[in-house]
């Protein structure tokens, strides 16, 4: 066996690593099925055994690195390593009994974290957390390590080089000075916010590199999110208080936790998790009227997390007491300079007391809010009076559809006891705030992200006001000119770039969290504040709490809670006539949403959802007709269904449908007027769409031109013409749950599943349906079906493709409409490919990856060629007894379908011997192609692959002879098709233009 060629292009290597193709190895790590890090303790399923035989021939090209519970597969080619890692069978112990072993879910036995909870049940108790890893990384890319016995060089975009250096020193037994980092980023700003999982990838690469004695590259992408999730929280704080307008007691309980080192260290057991770095005793700047013994204020906590917890808590307290959060702090602050600073910031930001959160209207559809936070930390010598005071007011705007957050303005006051140049302070804020706010607010990778679009609006720097106090404690506010270069100090007497300490930046996170509460009514107690979390929070807030209802009415379009929950009763399908029909409420029409209501980004996202879902294919009556006006007929075993007008026409379209009605139709198959839709409209798949995608789709459809086109009445046979029966059908066959990712699968697979089972509704055609028209599941999922006169071939183990499909071939087919060993997309699949052409490449790759997981075991490129050659050899012999068919073939088909020495541009690239349709149990697709030809899906993209139709050139008997010949010659191992002339007659009649 030869080395399988890489079927997927390798992303280019950074730096000069491409110069070492012979040396570099690629690794894929395999994590234990269960891993968790909780309150400083690590647990995972243990590796029992590696089944090396499961690699088979792949063992020749791969090395398996195994150290305790750390496993990696190494190869000279990334695709090879990935494939081998997929094949490798590992045996793990069952997951540890978390509850006994780690105490998850129970109170800490020493009661430290719980002390405030028990004592202060009369007051308010809140828990705040800080994650060990903020996210997996800033962008996907290679992480490369080259480790020798004396040195380690790493290419990694780490945000916390010192922490990573410490981990690697422990992992590799090297001096920290012998480890160096390089990356694309020249301005390596260490963040004070926390680590990213790229540190774990770097440690993985370094460990593997040491084991194999060669430089090793690991692809860092959203798959490393599993480490982010597994490593959990680094610190938790419980804060409790009682009292009222004035706090009677404020208790800080250090809920404990220790920071998690790189995953490789934990899995190999090479080191125990390091203790928390020694810190000074935590001390709150606020005076307590009636101080209680505090939970564990002497704990070795980081100021950053304590400030976040305390400042968030004070904001929560003041909201609950309906008092101004600044006043609350001023009442409990003795420090005169601190009071002056807060007053100065209050004036500069024009902060007005707002006892109850009330979002200020920003742009159309945006929620805006502002939040305050303050901290006072001692100087390097531990002196409080000369320490740093820092007061922040953050303004945010939140897009409720996408959940993305923009920092619009920051007012930052700082008093370090000595004069600080304001311009330098502002410059430092500019330089350090952007990376930090990116980490805090960036989109999380969700299964409903649309490639580049997710990053369409990267965080931009807010307007920054910096102010300081003079020696006498008087504010020296100054608006910093916007023209100031980020690193420039042109108009500043200070030439050294100011570097703000983590302490100075500490209130920033709390100020943003408090502003988010102001905007959304939701409290975010753990960073990062990703778009997905904001969206989830907003869903909660529209779920009934009074604050959410206010927000909805004030903006006037977020009443998206769906109306009329299903209360269908189970009906006996045998005795349909006696059934009481469940009744669904109509949702009142609303005026068509204004054209400028939705942002361009939302509408563009909706366009991609519409392309992925091929809305226009079914909702457009004829070629050249107006898009989405409906009227296309669908023959079903139950009668004829016509698609409806989904343009925003107010009378005949969906122009007056509120979002709630649209969402109900998409998820539950119930029209605005309360009547049931037939599942020819694949709401069974669309129910899987995420809220964001559904909202974007609504935005897109509402932004299209309205075209008046009345509905065509369906012609359903009794009893299927009773729409109410669909209630029972839904109860039996419809699951309206949105898509939930499978945590045991990769992010790529889950994205593919989301697209294929949701918007893409692949199974609507490719899965067989039962007697009542419901898709069969289980083994019948993707088992193929007959739709509208075409056979949608099986995408499962039942695939009849002469050459088994590989992921790479599926990708080629879906992206370009053709695959080397399979031919072109035709019939109803052609517009699907055209629609997919609008999607980002990564999405098409994800669909191919997902569908390939259902196919028979894929073959590599060499095996595929071997099978193809064999099939071609079989088909050269002309079968005897098919003379009439052979003559027709030679006259009409051979000029394009026969191979030859000479290259011919218009010749079919793929031999009929490899055509799936000729190997199928049914002749339908072959007959359809001959009758009406093949329109190449990518015809405007510059490809041949078209075929003229022969409907008027061949009689039925000629077609029968030709198709029989084709089957006998090109699929000699398949039985002859029966009842050919009947099928031909039916298809010619049915699809007659």
């Amino acid at each position, binding site marked *: 066996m030869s080395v399988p060629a890489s079927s997927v292009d390798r992303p280019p290597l950074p730096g000069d690593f491409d110069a070492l193709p012979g040396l570099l190895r690629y690794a894929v790590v395999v994590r234990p099925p269960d891993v968790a890090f909780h309150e400083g303790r690590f647990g995972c399923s243990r590796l029992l055994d590696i089944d090396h035989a499961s690699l088979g021939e792949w063992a020749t090209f791969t090395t398996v690195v195994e150290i305790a519970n750390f496993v990696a597969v190494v190869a000279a080619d990334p695709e090879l390593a990935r494939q081998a890692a997929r094949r490798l069978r590992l045996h793990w112990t069952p997951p540890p009994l978390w509850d006994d072993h780690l105490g998850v879910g129970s109170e800490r036995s020493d009661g430290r974290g719980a002390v405030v909870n028990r004592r202060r049940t009369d007051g308010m108790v809140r828990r705040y957390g800080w994650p060990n890893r903020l996210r997996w990384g800033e962008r996907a890319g290679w992480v490369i390590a080259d480790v020798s016995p004396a040195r380690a060089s790493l290419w990694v975009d780490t945000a916390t080089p010192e922490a990573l250096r410490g981990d690697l020193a422990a992992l590799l037994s090297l001096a920290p000075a012998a480890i160096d980092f390089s990356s694309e980023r020249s301005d390596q700003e260490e963040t004070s916010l926390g680590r990213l999982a790229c540190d774990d990838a770097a440690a993985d690469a370094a460990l593997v590199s040491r084991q194999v004695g060669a430089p090793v590259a690991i692809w860092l992408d959203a798959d490393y999110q599993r480490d982010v999730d597994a490593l959990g929280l680094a610190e938790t704080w419980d804060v409790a208080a009682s009292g009222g307008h004035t706090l009677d007691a404020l208790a800080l309980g250090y809920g404990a936790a220790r920071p998690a080192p790189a995953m490789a260290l934990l899995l190999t057991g090479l080191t125990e998790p390091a203790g928390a770095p020694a810190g000074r005793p935590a001390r709150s700047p606020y005076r307590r009227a009636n101080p209680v013994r505090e939970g564990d204020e002497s704990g070795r906590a980081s100021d950053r997390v304590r400030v976040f917890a305390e400042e968030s808590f004070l904001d929560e307290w003041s909201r609950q007491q309906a008092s101004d959060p600044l006043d609350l702090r001023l009442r409990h602050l003795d420090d005169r300079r601190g009071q002056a600073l807060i007053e100065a910031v209050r004036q500069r930001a024009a902060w007005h007391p707002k006892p109850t959160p009330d979002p200020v209207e920003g742009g159309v559809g945006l929620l805006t809010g502002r939040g305050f936070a303050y901290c006072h930390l001692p100087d390097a010598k531990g002196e409080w009076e000369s320490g740093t005071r820092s007061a922040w007011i953050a303004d945010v705007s939140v897009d409720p559809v996408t959940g993305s957050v923009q920092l619009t303005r920051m007012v930052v006051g700082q008093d370090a006891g000595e004069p600080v140049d304001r311009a330098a302070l502002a410059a430092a804020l500019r330089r350090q705030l952007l990376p930090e706010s990116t980490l805090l607010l960036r989109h999380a990778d969700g299964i409903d992200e649309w490639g580049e679009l997710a990053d369409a609006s990267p965080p931009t720097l807010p307007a920054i006001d910096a102010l300081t106090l003079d020696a006498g404690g008087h504010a020296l506010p100054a608006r910093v000119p916007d023209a100031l270069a980020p690193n420039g100090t042109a108009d500043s007497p200070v030439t050294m770039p100011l570097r703000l300490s983590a302490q100075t930046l500490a209130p920033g996170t709390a100020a943003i969290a408090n502003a988010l509460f102001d905007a959304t009514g939701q409290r975010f107690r753990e960073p990062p504040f990703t778009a997905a979390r904001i969206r989830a929070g907003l869903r909660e807030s529209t779920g009934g709490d009074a604050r959410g209802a206010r927000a909805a009415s004030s903006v006037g379009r977020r009443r998206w809670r769906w109306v009329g929950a299903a209360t269908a009763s189970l009906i006996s399908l045998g005795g349909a006539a006696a059934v009481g029909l469940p009744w669904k409420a109509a949702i009142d029409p609303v005026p068509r949403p204004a054209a400028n209501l939705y942002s361009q980004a939302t509408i563009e996202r909706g366009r991609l959802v519409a392309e992925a879902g091929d809305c226009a294919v079914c909702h457009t009556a004829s070629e050249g007709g107006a898009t989405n006006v409906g009227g296309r007929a669908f023959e079903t075993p139950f009668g004829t269904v016509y698609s409806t007008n989904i343009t925003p026409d107010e009378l005949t379209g969906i122009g007056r449908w509120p979002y709630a009605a649209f969402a109900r139709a998409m998820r539950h198959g119930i029209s605005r007027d309360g009547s049931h839709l037939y599942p020819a409209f694949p709401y069974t798949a669309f129910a899987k769409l995420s809220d964001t995608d559904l909202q974007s789709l609504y935005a897109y459809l509402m932004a299209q031109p309205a075209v008046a086109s009345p509905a065509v009445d369906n012609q359903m046979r009794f009893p299927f013409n009773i729409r109410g029966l669909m209630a029972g059908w839904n109860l039996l066959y419809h699951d309206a749950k949105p898509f939930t990712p499978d945590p045991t699968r990769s992010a790529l697979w889950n994205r593919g599943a989301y697209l294929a089972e949701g918007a893409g509704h692949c199974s609507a055609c490719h899965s067989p349906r039962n007697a009542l028209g419901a898709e069969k599941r289980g083994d019948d999922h993707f088992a193929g079906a007959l739709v509208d006169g075409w056979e949608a071939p099986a995408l499962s183990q039942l695939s009849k493709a002469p050459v088994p499909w590989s992921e790479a071939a599926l990708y080629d087919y879906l992206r370009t409409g053709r695959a080397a060993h399979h031919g072109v997309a035709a019939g109803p699949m052609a517009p699907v490919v055209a629609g997919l052409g609008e999607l980002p490449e990564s999405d098409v790759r994800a669909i191919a990856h997902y569908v390939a997981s259902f196919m028979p075991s894929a073959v590599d490129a060499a095996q595929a060629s071997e099978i193809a050659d064999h099939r071609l050899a079989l088909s050269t012999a002309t079968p005897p007894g098919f003379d009439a068919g052979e003559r027709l073939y030679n*006259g*009409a088909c*051979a*000029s*394009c379908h*026969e191979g*030859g*020495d*000479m*290259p*011919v*541009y*218009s010749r079919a690239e793929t031999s009929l011997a490899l055509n799936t349709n000729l190997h199928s149990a049914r002749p339908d697709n072959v007959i359809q192609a001959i009758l009406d030809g093949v*329109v*190449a899906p990518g*015809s*405007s*993209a*510059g*490809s*041949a*692959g*078209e*075929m*003229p139709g*022969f409907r008027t*050139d061949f009689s039925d008997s000629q077609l029968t002879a030709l198709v029989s010949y084709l089957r006998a010659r090109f699929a000699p191992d398949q039985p002859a098709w029966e009842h050919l002339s009947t099928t031909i007659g039916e298809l010619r009649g049915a699809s007659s233009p």
Partner: protein
Amino acid sequence: MTDSIDLRVNGQVRHLPLDPATPLLQVLRNDLCLNGPKYGCGLGQCGACSVLVEGRVARSCVISLGAVAGRDVVTLEGLGASGRLDPVQTAFIECQAAQCGYCLNGMIMTVRGLLNHCAQPSPDQIVGALKYNLCRCGTHVEILEAATLAAELDAAGVAPGGSE
């Protein structure tokens, strides 16, 4: 269709604001007034409509305009020039390989496509290449002679226009 499709025809770049699904043959004959390629069967069976796309022979009646966007198309008109004929054209004149002449465009373009790919074809290869080009008036023998001579002229490097 407002989008323009660009392609190169006989060395000249053309911007065609046409439906990409239009058959290339119709565009060549009706829009560009290039009547070298003939309409025979319209189904890719007879070869009378043959042109060269990127030097390879193609049946223009079954190729859509969109499928040749950005490509280099040569018709019989672009093969040689007045007084500077292509060796294949020279050979067909030498051998008087035409009777009714309707298939001639296809025969000449196909032989050109063959020679582009294979400088010294065997008689079997010539027959194989012309197998799916239909001649209905019985000039097959002369056409095969012409193709053989064309290969010789081409190999000898006879400059275009060497016949007269």
